[in-house]
């Protein structure tokens, strides 16, 4: 398919790897963060890190929406799912995220009506087909997913679907990045920016990284050549002493984002004062809830939700993985007590979680290395 195949060309990949090698200063260690879980997945899937010089290190960022959902929030979802007459809908990955007392999948096994959907529109369809039941959609995701939820809520209102509501756990990417930059235990030299979040919000929201923290950002696509090209662009900025936001992913990311998407989001959502992130704690203005104009579609206002804060399991080091402080395999329970089949931490659940991506693809390369 156009726009896909040409960005997986092996010849060009090798040429880019050569260019990257020529750009690094020997003796200097480079630490770049790929913000987004989609990049983490591509890096391990295509073995991008094998093409990099030893002194270029990629650190995984907090951009996996499943991984950042705290246990208390999962418990709230399960409490809603158990209410009589409720059909609880959510994306597939969210089903397996452990709460303090089992996952949504366990709740389903115990009799709750929990259904997996591919999009919020599917949840609305279920609501229309079951007018005598209350259908709740558990909305998670960054700015890439939020417009889809917003459009669905607008549609629900326009079509007068009164048995549909949304438990909104959407988050925004900029506040956790700022929190990471303020974190003393992490030193980064540059960022690979989240390409698809940027199709919605544009490149401008990332300008604070060079302006306030003096680090380059290159917004990148998700094919292997995109990621290699972005790394080369960051290295060029560092070599030339420049520091700015650059856009490698011009084939889909306009500088100003998708204005129509931003408009629907502004209409339907408002910022929460605080939102809890797994491993990162409470971050101000980092989560979205439904605006007062859409209050009647807000599941948290329609039903009573416990809203109890639950500490992460002691053995789990997802927080440090999300902050890029440790690598997945450095976690005490990685691949032993915590596997994709029986995850303890959220990073092992989603295919874009750093631990699951590493477990599925990267560990084989590491085994070769260690042997």
């Amino acid at each position, binding site marked *: 398919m156009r726009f896909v195949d040409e960005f997986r060309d092996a010849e060009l990949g090798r040429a880019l790897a050569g260019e990257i090698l020529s750009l690094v200063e020997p003796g200097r260690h480079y630490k770049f963060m790929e913000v987004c879980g989609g990049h983490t997945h591509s890096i391990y899937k295509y073995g991008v890190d094998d093409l990099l010089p030893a002194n270029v290190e990629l650190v995984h960022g907090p951009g996996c929406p499943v991984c950042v959902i705290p246990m208390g929030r999962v418990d709230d979802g399960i409490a809603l799912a158990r209410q009589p007459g409720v059909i609880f809908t959510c*994306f*597939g*990955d969210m089903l*397996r995220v452990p709460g303090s007392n089992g996952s949504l999948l366990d709740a389903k096994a115990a009799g709750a009506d929990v259904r997996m959907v591919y999009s919020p529109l599917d949840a609305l369809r279920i609501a229309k087909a079951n007018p005598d039941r209350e259908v709740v959609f558990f909305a998670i995701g960054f700015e*890439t997913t939020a417009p889809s939820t917003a459009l669905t809520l607008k549609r629900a209102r326009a079509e007068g679907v009164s048995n549909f509501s949304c438990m909104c756990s959407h988050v925004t990417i900029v506040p956790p990045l700022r929190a990471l930059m303020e974190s003393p235990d992490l030193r980064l030299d540059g960022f690979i920016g989240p390409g698809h979040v940027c*199709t919605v919000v544009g490149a401008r929201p990332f300008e604070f990284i060079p302006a306030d923290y003096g680090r380059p950002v290159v917004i990148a696509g998700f094919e292997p050549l995109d990621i290699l090209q972005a790394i080369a662009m960051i290295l060029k900025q560092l070599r030339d002493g420049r520091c700015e936001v650059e856009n490698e992913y011009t084939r889909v990311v306009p500088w100003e984002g998708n204005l*129509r998407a931003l408009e629907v989001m502004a209409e339907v959502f408002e910022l929460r004062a605080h939102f809890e992130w797994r491993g990162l704690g409470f971050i101000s203005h980092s989560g979205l809830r439904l605006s007062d104009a859409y209050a009647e579609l807000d599941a948290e206002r329609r039903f009573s939700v416990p809203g109890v804060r639950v500490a992460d399991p002691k053995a789990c080091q997802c927080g440090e993985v999300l902050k890029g402080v440790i690598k997945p395999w450095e976690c005490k329970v990685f691949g032993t007590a915590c596997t994709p089949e029986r995850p303890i931490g959220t990073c092992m659940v989603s*295919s874009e979680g750093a631990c699951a991506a590493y477990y599925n693809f990267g560990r084989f390369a590491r085994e070769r290395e260690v042997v």
Partner: protein
Amino acid sequence: VNYASAAEVRCGAEHCITCSDEAVAMEVLELDGERELALCQGEDGLRASVEIALVAPVAPGDVLLVHAGTAIAIATAAEARR
């Protein structure tokens, strides 16, 4: 894709549907203007109805970036701008 077991979720989720950030390129086959939907086909050959309110107007042959059933960008737009 059958999501009956955890292993299948993992294997089936080549691109995670909750994708933090990843969207999927799909080509527009047919338009349903009245419902603001388009029938699209992905690189894996799978077809799906896609919400196009955020990127309309689109035409058959356009390549859309689709995330959670909603098109968030037209890949062909940049080409057209050039």
